[in-house]
């Protein structure tokens, strides 16, 4: 009714149609049924030796079910054989996967599909078809210091050969293809390479997060063909810029979903654990942080849906909103993760409890595409430059 509602190009309901809401419900039920927390614990926390942090812990059968449901191709446009769903639909799917702390390259593949879509070349569309066929992708672009800038890659493409290394590559042991960012004559160029290519070595990092794997990719004169180059000449940075809001909202979704698990699990404990003859939740030192966590989650979620909606309806503001969303999600996760462990008391400090799995996943997610302060720096730059 008000003027402000008419000024925005976004639908008031974020564009949540019946398809998007149905996907949320189906995903929620799927993960409740197929990856309850005790199963997750058995899957990823069997081994408490941190030296084995390079292990790849996942359930390939469960992953195949995710693939069979078509969830890898929800963001692939229809022209490339995908489902072309709205960004809010993709967001709620990733949110439910995050709530289950799904070990598997869902967010990396969805992220790659947005980048490939933004490339808009025949070669990129061919790569999108690979996703529709059930292949998982991970985008690799960072340097040794872990920069999230799109021109940070130190991988070199010369005479159609890739040489050098890419760092902090997500779920590298689980994917079928990498979408790599390489410099050709100093110009960022996007190339699709099969994970099992000769001369490409996946060197796993030893990480804290039990639900992911991460690696360095070492390329030693890896030969590629022209058809593997998916970005148009000189257009890689533009494509990456266009996909940036989606990259941010996807990891935000994961964080928001995981945070809701942390909230509900900790509230359940506060409802049942007795000390001083009272359930913990009676005490305001426990109750109030949980209320604050809930408010922080709902603020982050609403920012997330706004960012996702803007991808489809207001792309010129999408990066700004996505930076806001990641800032809010990271702050919620950082506060809530700490409380989820702390409010569990002694049991929260053990390997046996479930909360550390989510704490570790959140710590990892918070770094991806930059922490909260980084988002606010980017946001300030966007706003100041826009005036």
């Amino acid at each position, binding site marked *: 009714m008000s003027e402000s509602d008419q000024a925005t190009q976004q639908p008031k309901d974020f564009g949540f149609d019946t398809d998007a809401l149905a996907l*949320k419900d189906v995903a929620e039920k799927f993960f409740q049924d197929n990856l309850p927390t005790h199963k997750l614990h058995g899957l990823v926390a069997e081994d408490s030796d941190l030296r084995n942090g390079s292990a790849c812990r996942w359930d390939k059968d469960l992953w195949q079910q995710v693939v069979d449901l078509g969830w890898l191709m929800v963001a692939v446009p229809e022209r490339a054989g995908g489902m072309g769903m709205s960004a809010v639909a993709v967001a709620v799917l990733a949110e439910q996967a995050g709530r289950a702390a799904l070990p598997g390259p869902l967010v990396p593949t969805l992220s790659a599909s947005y980048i490939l879509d933004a490339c808009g070349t025949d070669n990129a569309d061919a790569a999108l078809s690979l996703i529709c066929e059930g292949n998982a992708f991970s985008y690799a672009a960072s340097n040794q210091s872990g920069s999230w800038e799109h021109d940070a890659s130190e991988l070199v493409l010369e005479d159609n050969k890739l040489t050098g290394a890419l760092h902090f590559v997500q779920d590298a042991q689980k994917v079928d293809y990498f979408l790599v960012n390489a410099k050709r004559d100093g110009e960022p160029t996007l190339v699709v390479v099969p994970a099992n290519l000769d001369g490409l070595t996946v060197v796993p990092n030893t990480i804290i997060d039990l639900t992911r794997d991460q690696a360095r990719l070492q390329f030693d004169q890896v030969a590629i063909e022209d058809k593997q180059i998916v970005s148009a000449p000189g257009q890689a940075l533009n494509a990456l810029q266009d996909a940036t809001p989606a990259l941010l909202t996807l990891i935000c979704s994961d964080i928001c979903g995981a945070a809701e698990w942390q909230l509900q699990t900790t509230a359940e404990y506060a409802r049942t654990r007795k000390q001083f003859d009272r359930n913990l939740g009676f005490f305001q030192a426990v109750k109030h942080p949980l209320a604050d966590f809930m408010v922080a989650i*709902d603020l982050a979620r609403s920012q997330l849906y706004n960012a996702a909606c803007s991808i489809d309806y207001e792309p010129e503001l999408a990066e700004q909103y996505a930076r806001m969303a990641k800032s809010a999600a990271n702050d919620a996760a950082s506060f809530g993760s700490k409380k989820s462990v702390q409010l569990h008391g002694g049991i929260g400090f053990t390997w046996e409890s479930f909360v550390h799995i989510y704490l570790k996943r959140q710590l990892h997610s918070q770094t991806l595409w930059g922490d909260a302060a980084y988002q606010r720096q980017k946001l300030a730059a966007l706003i100041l430059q826009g005036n």
Partner: protein
Amino acid sequence: MSENAKRDTPEQQEFRQYCRDWLASNVPPPPDFKPLRSGAELATEEHLTYYSAWQKAAYDAGLVGCDYPVEYGGGGRTRCQSVANQEMLRARTPIMPGAIGLGMAAPTIYFHGSEDLKRQLLPKLLSGEELWCQGFSEPGAGSDLASVQTFAERKGDKWVINGHKVWTSTAQFATWMILLARTEKSDKYNGLTYFVVPIKSELGKSVTVRPLIKITGETGFNEELFDDLEVDDAYRLDEVGKGWQVAMTTLAHERGAGPLTAPTSGGQGIEVKRETGIGEYPLLKLARKCTRNGKPAIEDPVISDKVMSMLVRQVGIKQHRRMRSVGGLADQQRLALQDKLLATEYQQDAAAVALEIEGPAGTLSNFDEQAPDQGKWPLAYLSSFGGTIAAGTSEIQRNILGERVLGLDKSK
């Protein structure tokens, strides 16, 4: 067509057109003084005259009390008050002085009062001829409202009331008060009874009304002393001992969570602005204008981070409200209960960041000509505590969230 109009029933559609037609030629010219933003700010006779005339006009036109039955002075319509409210806001009408009567007393009397009381009190309440105030809080009963000590003692078919109420907006103008009193000392919750009591006719006799001065130096509410105030048993709402349940009806409507939509009017004097760009965000503008270490404060990375954090929160609050319009996405009650906490703590924290940006200039009050932004930030910071304390402190809001949404044990 507006979003609201699209969902109108035939009755609402017709009524909306009627409201528009009437408002097109009946919104009064702005007053000589600075327009008030809520009925609680009513301070002078001049205010009273101007705003009472507006409420009466809107009432006579059928825009106030639309959903109340005709026999109680209402319009006898169905879900039309929200339509009138939307149209009054759209037309940027003045506020109505009877906010406490309209928003809190009327629904309480409607749901708990006798037939005679409803016929006697509601018409003049709706028209604004009689103003109301709320006598709940006491010096010893704030967040713990059920501990009120103001005592009503039964004497035949009368009650004799003694006690002390505080934080009462518009008591100096009120004809009536809704009053929560103790009628039984041994039972905290079941020892309370709810009355409507005359104030104006008893002034200088058994009722004293005195202004309280706020943290900002402004007056704005009052305290009342009751010294053997006698009221007829007919002015009791619901049964003796049921005061707490009746008070819950009042408080639910205060939060906007009751079944009846309160008549609201407003928007006068508020600049009609399109969605302003983020570059217009007040803290951002302030941080560009103020200097820190010889450079615009916004170039200081710590200040910049704080301004961006507040901006993220402000946008988040807007989106949070928007999320409430989507069915099937999130628990609506969970979101609704966060509103007050979100808004009031944001106001407070934003004002605190503004003071930090201003530095030494933040010491200047709104009466100092050198003060940046006309000295609004120190005043905003001081006033913000009204938000975080009144109508359920932030601490009580967190209790409510923990208990009603997360199912945690009551802290009491």
